[in-house]
């Protein structure tokens, strides 16, 4: 990859800007600690997000969605590129500097069962971050937490209870309340509804939308469920094998998908009416291993329209008008 140009002219409107973000995990190391083989989980991802917007990130399992989310939060150290949050370049912040940023950006996890500590009560889980970050004065913590629980649809007598006493949907509400307890500006939702059944999914998504309107939150919503993403997002990014293949507003992407992978993905959305004939684009083969990505365009092994250039040269990620970007040779 080419050397990234690091500049300090940040877009003042964007709350989150990611430039050429790269994350590699070492697979094999020599005795001296030199990495001989690595897995490129996130490769050259760039996007901008304005305050109050929701970015939906879609893609297959293992395409690097979760890694992207966690790298933005600096739960993984980025290998390359820049993360600009709220006008500050946080890419090289150390853990002490990060501690103040932590309360501005939060995460909601996929699995509501393992993401809550089993040995503390709901009250304890929710008041700990409030106390650590001094969100409200000490004597008002309990009132604040109870208020927050009401907002997230939890009853006040849940305060003394333990996570194992709750159902998945209620636990996810606790996770949402915990993420919101520090009054963040950005929340990364890492497949928050995929472990829940459909009726609860709708409740949680409505809750997230309602909270976004109330608190002016910005979401990065990671999901593999296109109908959920279609409902909640303002912008959509499509990922394939670690890189962003298409990015744009929801309207543009759904009306006019550019990349063949996006087209194939959208053709797979199930339709509620069985009489409607679906024009499925069936992709051949499996997703290649990110430890050994194909040369040229990463999608060429499965692309129905692949040409010779696709097999040799990686396509450029270009703007095709109105912020609708894609990386494909066939678009000219």
């Amino acid at each position, binding site marked *: 990859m080419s050397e990234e140009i690091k500049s300090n002219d940040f877009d003042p409107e964007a709350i989150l800007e990611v430039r050429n973000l790269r994350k590699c995990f070492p697979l094999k190391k020599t005795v001296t600690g030199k990495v001989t083989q690595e897995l490129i989980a996130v490769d050259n991802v760039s996007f901008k997000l304005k305050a109050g917007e929701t970015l939906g990130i879609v893609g297959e399992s293992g395409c690097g969605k979760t890694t992207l989310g*966690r790298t933005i939060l600096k739960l993984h150290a980025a290998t390359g590129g820049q993360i600009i949050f709220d006008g500050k370049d946080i890419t090289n912040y150390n853990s002490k500097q990060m*501690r103040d940023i932590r309360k501005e950006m939060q995460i909601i996890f996929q699995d509501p069962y393992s*993401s809550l500590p*089993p*040995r503390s009560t709901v009250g304890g889980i929710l008041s700990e971050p409030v106390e650590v970050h001094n969100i409200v004065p000490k004597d008002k913590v309990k009132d604040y937490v109870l208020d927050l629980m009401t907002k997230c649809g939890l009853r006040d007598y849940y305060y003394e209870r333990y996570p194992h006493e709750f159902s998945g949907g209620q636990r996810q509400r606790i996770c949402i309340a*915990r993420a919101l307890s520090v009054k963040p500006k950005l929340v990364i939702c890492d497949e928050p509804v995929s472990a829940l059944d459909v009726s609860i999914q709708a409740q949680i998504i409505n809750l997230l939308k309602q909270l976004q309107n109330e608190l002016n939150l910005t979401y990065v919503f990671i999901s593999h469920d296109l109908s959920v993403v279609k409902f909640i997002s303002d912008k959509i990014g499509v990922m394939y094998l670690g890189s962003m293949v298409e990015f744009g507003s929801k309207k543009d992407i759904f009306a006019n998908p550019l990349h063949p992978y996006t087209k194939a993905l959208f053709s797979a959305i199930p339709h509620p009416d069985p009489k409607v004939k679906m024009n499925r684009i069936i992709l051949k083969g499996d997703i290649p291993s990110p430890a050994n990505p194909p040369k040229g365009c990463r999608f060429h092994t499965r692309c129905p329209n692949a040409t010779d250039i696709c097999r040799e040269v990686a396509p450029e990620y270009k703007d095709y008008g109105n912020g609708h970007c894609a990386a494909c040779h066939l678009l000219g």
Partner: protein
Amino acid sequence: MEEQIKNKDISKENETEVPLDKTVRLMSPTRMVVRRFFRSKLSIIGLIMVISLFLFSFVGPIVYSEWGEIELDESGKTEYSASVTTYTVNGREYIVRQTTEKSLKDNFLAPPSAEHPLGTDNEGYDIFVRLMYGGRISLIVSFIAVFLITILGVIMGGIAGFFGGAVDNIIMRLCDILICLPGIPILLIISTILDASEIDAKYRIYLLMIYLTFISWPGTARLVRGQILSLREQEYMVAAEAMGYSAPRKIFKHLVPNVMPQLIVQMSLSLGSMILYEATLSYLNLGVKAPYAAWGTMINIISTNPDILQNHLNVWVPAGICIVIAVLGFNFIGDGLRDALDPKARR
């Protein structure tokens, strides 16, 4: 303002309808463990054994204060021996009848009586009373040692498991080295040094216990490290990281409480083995020294006179029974706790 009004409305709604799950009060994990613990008969027996030993050792000397720990029964007794000697001088025979009256200062090896419920030992100390004082030493020392081992083990294991990498390597290699050290030979050396430096016999055992702590903490540290290695990959630890909690908070407020079940079991089991260790040391004359009492020292009396082993069972059997009760009791409690804390067990 609008938001607040809305919230009030919701809470009012909550008050009017009483949902089902409010009436069904679920138990906290701790209460469930206590309930499961008391369901097992063996753990109740263990608890009774340990509690009665505690009462015997700590309340006993206050209730029964006829004799002190190092108070000799100087009532003594008089021994009479008669002898007849015959001399022949110049063809004449002389018969000498001699009676010796020997007065002993101490009343030793007395059989059980009203005065001495379990008799006296070879020095004339009351065995029943010394059993109580010996229990004090054994229980205090093993509690101190286990407490120190646990604290040291949790701190070292917690740091090693949480930080990993070089720190983990250094601490674990240190553990390996300490585990390699043979305990008893080094104890012999230390004991000799203590003998030479004329340290009060009362404090010897505590110094030896500090040494035992020093060589025993790696076991606990390994246990804690292993647990933390698996716990730190849990998603709630990633959540704690995302919250920006400090490392000590993550280790001691989020990880260690989740290691507690295994730790409690380990502690109760090692209490038993520490009592046994202390008794062994005293038996080998490395621990508590005369005139102070310890269960091991009391059994050691048999080495002074083989006659005691055969004919004066009241001298050494009670101390042996006490050791067995203590070790069994702590092991029963440990087993009961292990079953009670097992999350897979049914309610």
